[in-house]
């Protein structure tokens, strides 16, 4: 059931990500809903489920865009590991936690992706523009991640992947 929900949530997140227009005036910033899904799994679920979530979200991101396969999964898995190391230090239910990690993971994901794309010869943006794009994407992700975490947690509660009481007290 975990995997089915993971796939459905990632697919819905990918659709939403493609539907929300790009902010051309902000360095082609995108609302990275798939990164928010990865944050949910990293903050709330056990490490092996979180890594699967990061892998599936990254795979979905790569197959639907011209990014070479595996780049996003690689980045999201590293960032999930990082969040996993520090999540015991924070209160995961607080909105500010979702906002902080949503912003952080998106910022690091964007910079890391550009490094991979740059050295792979796929996209060469001026670094000033990459920072503009990364900061705007981080801002958008910070606004959206708490809501994505809430929805995913309730969905996992409904289907029995996590304790229902735990999910609804989020």
């Amino acid at each position: 059931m975990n995997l089915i929900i993971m796939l459905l949530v990632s697919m819905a997140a990918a659709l939403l990500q493609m539907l929300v227009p790009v902010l051309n005036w902000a360095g082609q910033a995108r609302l990275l809903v798939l990164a928010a899904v990865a944050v949910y799994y990293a903050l709330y679920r056990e490490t092996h489920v979180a890594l699967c979530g990061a892998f599936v979200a990254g795979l979905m991101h790569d197959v639907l865009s011209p990014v070479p396969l595996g780049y996003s999964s690689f980045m999201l898995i590293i960032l999930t590991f990082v969040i996993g190391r520090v999540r015991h230090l924070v209160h995961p239910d607080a909105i500010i936690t979702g906002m902080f990690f949503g912003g952080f993971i998106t910022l690091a994901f964007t910079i890391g992706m550009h490094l991979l794309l740059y050295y792979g010869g796929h996209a060469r943006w001026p670094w000033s523009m990459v920072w503009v794009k990364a900061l705007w994407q981080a801002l958008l992700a910070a606004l959206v991640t708490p809501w994505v975490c809430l929805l995913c947690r309730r969905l996992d509660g409904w289907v029995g992947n996590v304790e229902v009481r735990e999910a609804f007290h989020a």
Partner: protein
Amino acid sequence: MFEYRKLIVCLVLLATVVLLNVPHFWAMRLRSSSRDVIAPFQSALTLGGGRLRESLDSLTGARRVMREKNRQAVEITRLQFLVDQYSALADENRELRELLNFNERMPYRLVVGEVIGRGDPSGWWQMIRINCGSDDGVRPNLAVISPQGLIGKTTEVSGQTSDVLLITDPNCRVACRLLRTGGLGVVRGGGVRPTADPELELLYLIEALRMDYISLNQQLQPDDIVVTSGLGGIFPEGLRVGRVKSAGTEPGGLYQRAAIVPSADLRQLRFVSVVVPVEGGGADNP
């Protein structure tokens, strides 16, 4: 239980390494099938949003619709007049080519597609996704046009969808010609580029098209029309690309460079056409 979790972690890491090294053919198969699964939902959401917007517009814009209808009637009359003129010219051209024993130009057919997605999900490229693919005869590296002019070229094609790299992306380069002077050059997207004003970078990042490698002998004027030259091998000759906004000498001083305004409004695209060469045509046009 602990061993089971460790096994899953190892499998995920292994899968990531495999994914990073997957052969191109299998990567394309995976992309193609995933896009075909997503395409109906993407199409439904995009078209649903479009219909909703149209419904709201129709409630408020009846007068505007009537004005637009009248304008289009005038435009149709004008275009019909041009078609009649071109028919006569085409007949004359065919007769002359027969006299000179030229081969027939390679004929093309247009595959019409509706835009179902704008921008790639990662946001690094300027692309659109349309709802026609290899099932309709579309393949990578074909020109995509709108009634106003060139839009871009197809890149990745699945059974039911195609990704179109817009001409405003820096990775899209088009061999072009100035219609008035005949001067050649290469048009590429400006993309996102720092400008001299650091504050402006935060507000507006997209540059217009740029035409490079124009000979210094060419006397460029504002509003000169730029069309495809057909030399690059992808875009057929004569497709309208844009018009010259301003021109100057390159920093090296060997060529001229011009800023080009695209003919087509790339933000308002809904239906576009892919120019598909018909197999078995003549050979004097790529």
